[in-house]
């Protein structure tokens, strides 16, 4: 995420102006009132920030946020849910995998504001209190990691992989887990953990 530039920025000024025009169309009273008071920066802020409501691990968060913030950055930087990891930030490694309305997605490639009205589950929302989710327990049992950085994404992806019905054999698991890269190469143990949970037959 880019920091605010302290030096004058013509492009930003342009945006402020064009945003002001839009604001007049959208929220006349607030914008005109602010313009009257020459509260340029505040107008830009008010227009740039977009209202958004997302339920995260069972808690509803209603906020106004910069549209540039990805779901990943919202989770980590704003809500301090740092279990979800930033690996590549380009959708190539899967470390940022979370569930949105039950589907696994790369939280780095979706804007937080695009998830308005949705339900997000992160690794923090997977366990039942102090009782580990069966997939978390299986990763520990099978040593499904070394450094652990990719693990939250692997586990979120693995849970979805079973729920989707794509964990019938090793080949299928490897194919449908290919969006989660493990730099340490713990793949055989990750596959073993998923196979055990799948064979356990529990409704996860």
């Amino acid at each position: 995420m880019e920091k605010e530039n302290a030096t004058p920025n013509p492009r930003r000024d342009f945006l402020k102006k064009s945003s002001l025009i839009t604001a007049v169309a959208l929220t006349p009273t607030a914008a005109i009132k602010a313009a009257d008071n020459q509260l340029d920066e505040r107008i830009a802020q008010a227009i740039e920030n977009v209202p958004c409501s997302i339920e995260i691990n069972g808690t509803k968060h209603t906020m106004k946020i910069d549209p540039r913030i990805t779901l990943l950055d919202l989770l980590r930087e704003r809500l301090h849910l740092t279990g979800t990891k930033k690996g590549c930030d380009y959708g190539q490694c899967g470390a940022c995998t979370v569930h949105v309305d039950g589907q696994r997605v790369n939280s780095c490639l979706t804007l937080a504001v695009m998830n308005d009205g949705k339900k997000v589950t992160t690794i923090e929302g997977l366990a039942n209190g102090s009782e580990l989710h069966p997939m978390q327990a299986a990763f520990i049992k099978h040593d499904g990691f070394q450094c652990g950085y990719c693990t939250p994404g692997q586990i979120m992806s693995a849970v979805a992989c079973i729920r989707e019905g794509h964990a019938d054999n090793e080949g299928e698991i490897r194919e449908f887990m290919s969006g989660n890269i493990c730099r340490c190469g713990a793949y055989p143990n990750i596959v073993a953990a998923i196979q055990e949970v799948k064979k356990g037959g529990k409704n996860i």
Partner: protein
Amino acid sequence: MKQFQYIRSVSQKAAISAITQEPTAKFVAGGTNLLDLMKRHVMTPERLVDINKLPLRDIKEENKGLHIGALALNSTVAEHASIVKRFPLLAEALNAGASAQLRNMATVGGNLMQRTRCPYFYDTTTPCNKREPGTGCSALNGFNRMHAIFGATPHCIAVNPSDMNVALMALDASVQVSGPKGDRIIKMQDFHRLPGDQPEKDTILDKNELITAVTIPASTLTHNHYLKVRDRNSYAFALVSVAAGLTLDGKTIKAARLAMGGVAHKPWRLTAAEQSLQGKQVSIEAFQQAADIAMQGAKGYEHNDFKLKLAPNTIVEALKIASRI
């Protein structure tokens, strides 16, 4: 990411109006390609028009064929019972692309519009006619292992990276679009363009037009296979891919459909090769002959010379697997 204005549109009309007002505006659906490019400053729209709330997710039977809403997710389409049964090429191609997570985000419309993965297009420190018209093509004499062998020009040798597009091309699909001047239907054959001297244009779609659906006519293909050859087994772009569909009556080929990916600026239909197969008996020789015809006019650019052998071999292999000989 550069600053932009975000508009959540609730109707098709509002979405088209919002895109028309701002010259650099872009629609965003899954965002898997656009946000990636925006983070790298390859694309810098001043306005994003979020179309996710538009009712364009339906997959339904229509005129004995299929209508797929532009916002249908790649994963939904790949798993759809009727598509798996009637259009296995499309399901196979979609499942060969990206990862499970990305397929849960990427839409059919977005997949049609995805940009090339040419590393020079992504690298804003190098010349690229697609990214910045008139600056030159770095791939032409650069590291061009992934690049085109058909239809390229000195202006651009990039390839279209989509698997879905290759299947849609073989299935004679059409793209339904809606814009300020009304609706129109574009045949898949015409939708993507060759680079010519305007490689910045991937498609013939007008900037203010919205893709609303993809339609596929009824298929008579009895034997299908999508074969993707890549550097690793999964989650990699194609070096070469082939969508092969045959209508077989015993061992006689009544009709053939062939399209290739990873070889051109657009999904590459092999019409002459298809014609050469018609009426022939299924055999390796017939497939080899079709592959030879398909490769006429192919040209390597040094690092991708291997594709001149890989492509015909992939055609033959895809036809072998499809026809189960």
